């Protein structure tokens, strides 16, 4: 279940959004279609930082899904790194050729292996005139100082290839590296290399900071004012939180930032995949945090973090660049090297030599992409766990639209016929009968061609929740809303799209669009609402609560003396930031006491049923619903109200004691039209 710290992350995310007016940005993003690659959430946007794992109700292994999805999309040429993808290209090339030595002035031997990584390449290809490679140099000099003559092995650990889904290229690099590194003890001065060698290669590796601590050297220059940024490859991936801090405490004048350890804000780019304005804002926030500590140096243990955090400093004509000018970036080894008196981080010029290499001619890689090798039960399991609740997007530094990405990934799997059988059955039912339940009867029409509005009831209200269906009609009548239900409507296709049955969805969409276009469409189900509004094009869609809220004075509401809790449906709440209207309606009912769930609005926990989880993984759906209802019981609610018949269905299934009703049911009760 969600880990410690999650709450803090969520609150903070909400606060940040409120401050930065980011809601508007979000809405903007909804309007403008993505340009590059895919129609859906862009798979390159995830930083694989695992920050969302703190809040994901299903605790799925998102990183893995992202990686494999990238692998697939790479084969369509739809994965492009930032900086025109030049860094992945450089990784591939250094794998294909024999990477050359560039460190100078190191006393080399064979006591231990030191792997300096790609820093020199970054210095060159970034065209920033910087010295990120200085960290590796400082680390090597420190090793000398500690009495070691390291064997220096040059090359690329393949981190970026691995996490960007260039898995075939990665395997080649890995094999080469293995040959050089197998059986040896390796020191690295970069969190990415550490993570890769330790977990992906399974080698005997020690992080630079830990190594220094083991030797407990005497530091002479400890005057630098520092604070520490946790790289996710150290922190959330490996729980290496203490060693760097210990070292910095000894080697410098150290202080902590506000968000640290598992809650650390990330540098917001990984594997060069996803730089955009959200990630830029996150970086800015991180630098501000660092500056607020009074430190002069933001120190980190990952070359990439250094590069990304440093980015703002290179902006031209930027107020932020100016404001954050005096919080400089250093690597941990640079601080250590300085403290030991063996390295000068303030030297102007870049401190390595570029050898002139003859360079053999490279044979183009012969790569045959084979997606199947990466698909196993575990992956499939993870892929269909997501409830598309979007909890993750809220805390994601990059606003990654994970839910959409999941949908797209599932469609890849469905193409290969690897989707859950349950989903295929539902898809067949929809295609055959027009509804998810396989009922023979078509959706009940309500002919009225002149009407301004269309009521789109959707499968649940039409076939399973007649109460909601009737209540909607009743209320529309009371409010003098003239509506029709055209003949021939079919399921909105939400479940098809969420479950990856994309071809079928397109079909359905076409059918419905034809019938719905041109009029104002009212939905009583949040799932339908979200689908018609976001996954269809060119429709004018309203949720029933929009209509009610406008005319609430027209309803002769009577007292209902009940303690009510409101459950935010994901497809209404987080998807559209639609939190207040339903609450206002509930509170308009005299006598109702509205109690809040502990996590509500953008942080609300989902009912567990979305994204096809209810059908494919009922246990998960039920557990999540139970958890939610347990809280309702604990808080002594008389009823739980929601605005989505589908959520209500699942919540009701998992609680006997408290009724879960639709907001319309509550209104009916208040109007004195209760129907048991």
């Amino acid at each position, binding site marked *: 279940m969600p880990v410690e710290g999650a709450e803090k992350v969520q609150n903070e995310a909400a606060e940040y959004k409120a401050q930065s007016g980011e809601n508007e940005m979000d809405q903007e993003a909804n309007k403008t279609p993505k340009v590059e690659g895919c129609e859906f959430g862009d798979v390159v946007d995830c930083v694989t930082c695992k920050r969302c794992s703190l809040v994901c109700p299903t605790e799925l292994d998102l990183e893995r899904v992202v990686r494999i999805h990238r692998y697939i999309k790479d084969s369509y040429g739809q994965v492009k790194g930032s*900086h*025109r993808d030049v860094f992945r290209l450089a990784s591939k*090339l250094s794998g294909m050729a024999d990477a*050359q030595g560039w460190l100078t002035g190191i006393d080399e031997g064979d006591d231990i292996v030191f792997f300096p990584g790609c820093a020199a390449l970054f210095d060159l290809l970034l065209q920033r005139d910087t010295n990120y490679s200085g960290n590796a140099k400082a680390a090597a000099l420190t090793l000398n100082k500690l009495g070691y003559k390291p064997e220096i092995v040059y090359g690329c650990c393949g981190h970026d290839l691995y996490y960007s889904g260039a898995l075939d290229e990665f395997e080649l690099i890995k094999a080469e590296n293995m040959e050089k590194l197998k059986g040896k003890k390796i020191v690295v001065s970069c969190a990415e290399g550490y993570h890769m060698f330790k977990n992906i290669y399974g080698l005997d590796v020690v992080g630079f900071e830990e190594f220094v601590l083991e030797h407990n050297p005497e530091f002479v220059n400890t005057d630098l004012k520092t604070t520490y940024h946790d790289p996710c490859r150290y922190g959330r991936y490996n729980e290496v939180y203490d060693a760097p801090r210990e070292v910095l405490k000894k080697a410098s004048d150290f202080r902590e930032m506000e968000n640290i350890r598992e809650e650390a804000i990330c540098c917001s780019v990984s594997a060069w995949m996803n*730089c955009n304005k959200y990630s830029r804002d996150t970086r800015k926030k991180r630098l501000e945090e660092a500056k607020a500590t009074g430190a002069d140096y933001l120190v980190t243990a990952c070359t990439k973090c250094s590069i990304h955090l440093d*980015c703002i400093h*290179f902006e031209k004509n930027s107020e932020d660049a100016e404001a954050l000018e005096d919080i400089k970036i250093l690597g941990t080894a640079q601080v250590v090297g300085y403290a030991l008196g063996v390295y000068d981080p303030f030297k102007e010029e870049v401190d390595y030599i570029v050898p002139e290499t003859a*360079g053999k001619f490279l044979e183009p890689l012969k790569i045959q992409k084979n997606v199947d090798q990466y698909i196993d039960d575990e992956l499939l399991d993870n892929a269909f766990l997501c409830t598309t609740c979007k909890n993750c997007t809220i805390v994601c530094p990059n606003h990654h639209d994970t839910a959409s990405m999941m949908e797209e990934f599932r469609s890849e799997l469905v193409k290969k016929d690897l989707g859950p059988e349950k989903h295929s059955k539902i898809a067949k039912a929809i295609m055959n009968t027009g509804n998810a339940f396989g009922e023979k009867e078509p959706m009940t029409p309500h002919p009225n061609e002149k009407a301004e509005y269309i009521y789109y009831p959707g499968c649940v209200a039409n076939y399973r929740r007649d109460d909601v269906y009737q209540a909607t009609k009743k209320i529309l009548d009371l409010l003098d809303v003239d509506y029709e239900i055209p003949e021939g409507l079919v399921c909105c296709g939400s479940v098809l799209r969420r479950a990856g049955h994309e071809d079928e969805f397109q079909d359905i969409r076409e059918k419905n669009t034809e019938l719905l276009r041109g009029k104002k469409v009212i939905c009583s189900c949040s799932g339908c609402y979200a689908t018609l509004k976001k996954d269809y094009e060119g429709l004018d869609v309203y949720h029933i609560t929009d209509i009610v809220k406008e005319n609430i004075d027209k309803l002769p509401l009577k007292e209902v003396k009940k303690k009510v809790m409101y459950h935010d449906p994901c497809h209404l709440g987080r998807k559209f930031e639609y939190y207040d209207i339903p609450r206002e309606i509930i509170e308009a009912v005299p006598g109702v006491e509205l109690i809040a769930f502990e996590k509500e609005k953008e942080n609300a926990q989902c009912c567990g049923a979305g994204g096809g989880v209810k059908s494919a993984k009922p246990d998960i759906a039920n557990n999540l619903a139970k958890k939610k209802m347990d809280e309702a019981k604990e808080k002594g609610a008389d009823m739980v109200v929601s605005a989505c018949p589908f959520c209500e269905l699942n919540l009701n299934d998992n609680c006997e004691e408290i009724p879960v009703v639709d907001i319309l049911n509550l209104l009916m009760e208040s109007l004195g039209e209760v129907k048991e």
Partner: protein
Amino acid sequence: MIGVFICFCGNNIGGYIDVQQLTDYFNEEYPADDVVAFNTTFLCSEIGQDLIKEKIEELNLDAVVIASCSPKHHGAIFQACIGEKMNQYRWEFANIREQCAWVTPNKKNATEKAKAIISGAIEKSRLLEDIGSTRVPVTKDILVIGGGITGMHAALELSAKGFHVHLVEKKETVGGNMVRFDRVFPTDDCAMCTSSPILAEVAMDPLIDIYSLSEVTEVKGRPGEYDVTVVKQPRYIDETKCTACGDCTAHCPVEVWSEWDEGMGLRAATYKPMAQAVPLKNRINMDSCIRCGTCENVCKAEAVMYNEEPKEFTMKVGAILVATGYELIDLKNTEYHQEHPNVISGLQLERLKVPSGPTAGEILRPSDGKMPKHLVFVQCAGSRDRRYNVYCSKICCMYATKNARLIKSENPDMKISICYIDMRTAGRGYEEFFDKAREMGINYIRGNVSEIVPDGEDLILKVEDTFTSEPLDLKADLVVLSSGLIPSQGTKDVASTIHLVSGADGFLAPVHVKIAPVDTATKGIFIGGTTEAPKPIQECITDAGLVASRIASFLKDDDIEIDLTTSKINPEICIKCGTCAENCVYDAIDTTGENYEVLDVSCMACGKCSVTCPTNAIDLSLYTEDQVIKQIDGILAEDPDSIIGFSCYQCGYNAADLAGTAKSFIDPKIKVVLVPCSGRVTMQHMLYPFFKGARGVFLAACLEGQCHYIDGNLQAKEKVKLAKKALDVMGVGGHKLNLFNMSSAEGPKFVAAAKRMVEICQ
């Protein structure tokens, strides 16, 4: 479906490439099956064009590949032809004539190379998109910078066409160099008689606003709508009150050398340069004013304002003419010893000769005011000399002859010699003019003056008479240097304020010397007269007329149409880091709004902005990042051993074409990829070919200082330097990546570059 149309070009391609086999290959064997190929004898003929149009319709083609001659040749024809049936940008060319058939002697090799070239074009064409156009409004006012004969004449022509002109002149008066001469060749009419009507007309024209003592300090905006900032230096005399009576000059106690007279005469601290000055107002020059207060006391008009400040003002204009002219090379402290009082420049002689000048037209030597007995003209002083200017200043032979004739006819006893390398008197009536001079007894000595040795007040000229092979020590008592022309300081200043390209000689470069001689690489900005090159007045007038006509066509409508081949920014991902704007020398990226945006009119579609964008948010619409990559993919899929040569549209590509026209040999490994500017080539472009097995990569760019987009090749140079090092670190080998500079006319340099690459990449 992609349609490939292959041209035999009679025997021009058919004779060197097996066109039928090529066609069959793309129809039958090419790995992608959405390709159909056709061939015909002359694709550019009506029959050929009809074939293209017919197939586009019949097969509903998505893109067209034209495999024929260089796009520089018939590109426009094909574009128009294709534009009739689909978007005019949905086609890609494969230059299999100049860059394949004509440089590859072996038919089999040529056919194979053609396959790779066409394959590159096919793969690139898959990413082509429709490119539309847009219209933007224009301001009809025009800015002319420089009020010499060129600027004045253009201003008058433009006003005659109904345009409002702002004429900005740095000096106290308009007129430029010409109004300081005595007579002008080839007719010997008086310079002032010719120019004073023009000066008067300019002064009175209601559509011409003159800003004297003014300079342009900033130009922003876009073609059709420039925001110009001008700074006017104080005159310290109120222009609205001064009647130019000259009372102040008469009473001013100061006497200093006059700039207008090139130091041949004196002036007071308050003066007007000449009686015909426009505007006709006095000026106090604060460099020499001693603030004695005399002028303030004597001025009846109360026009003196000692505390006047420089004024800054702005104007909006649609087009700009730069006519800031020339000056003479300074030869003081050289073997010409111009610092010697009796060694003067041609321009100084003009001031001596002018009847209204300091000596009232008498030729009196500066050191003692005596009439010289032997006057020697030294031709090519600082011209045609690698130590100074390699170019010929074109007009000196004529103006020296002019002045020699005039002086001789007035002073038949004076000995006049002219030392020359060869006399360049091409032009109507010029040779006759020169002939007459010899008849008049002017002593022409064919020999270059190697040194002028001061000998007291006299001078000894070391010269070899190449007719007699006799070394001479010519004794002269006045020497006139026919000093070479160089771009004026003002020209250089303007070029850096509005980013214009200058040639190796420093004069501003037109976009095409022959067919667009007054257009610059920046739309809406024109050059003319001696700003472009040394030339006589007659040619300045021709330029001025042409400029006026070009500007009138440019601004004839209320808006102008531009094709949107420009760069685009995706505001969704742009992080507003500003690097693109920094790369763009045309200020085409608007960074003031909520989102960064490319101004389509200003954008020259060079692509430099896109190469350092960290987020890939910005890209050109044509020659996109991925189109270039796909083209490389296509080429290397056919021939992985290729050497990829990114060639810029303005120079490298032309040079490659010229190598073809000259039927030079180029190794078939060399495959040219056309880019708008070498500065458009990204790091990815440089490295990617190696990943796909290419043997080498090079860039063929304009000569340094001559990039048509100002500094693209310099940006490329920096990038190549870093990429080479990166290739070394990766172990690929940086020597396999190189940059070569060449002009569009230097076919042999392209051949040499290709050869060098093949050697390196053995």
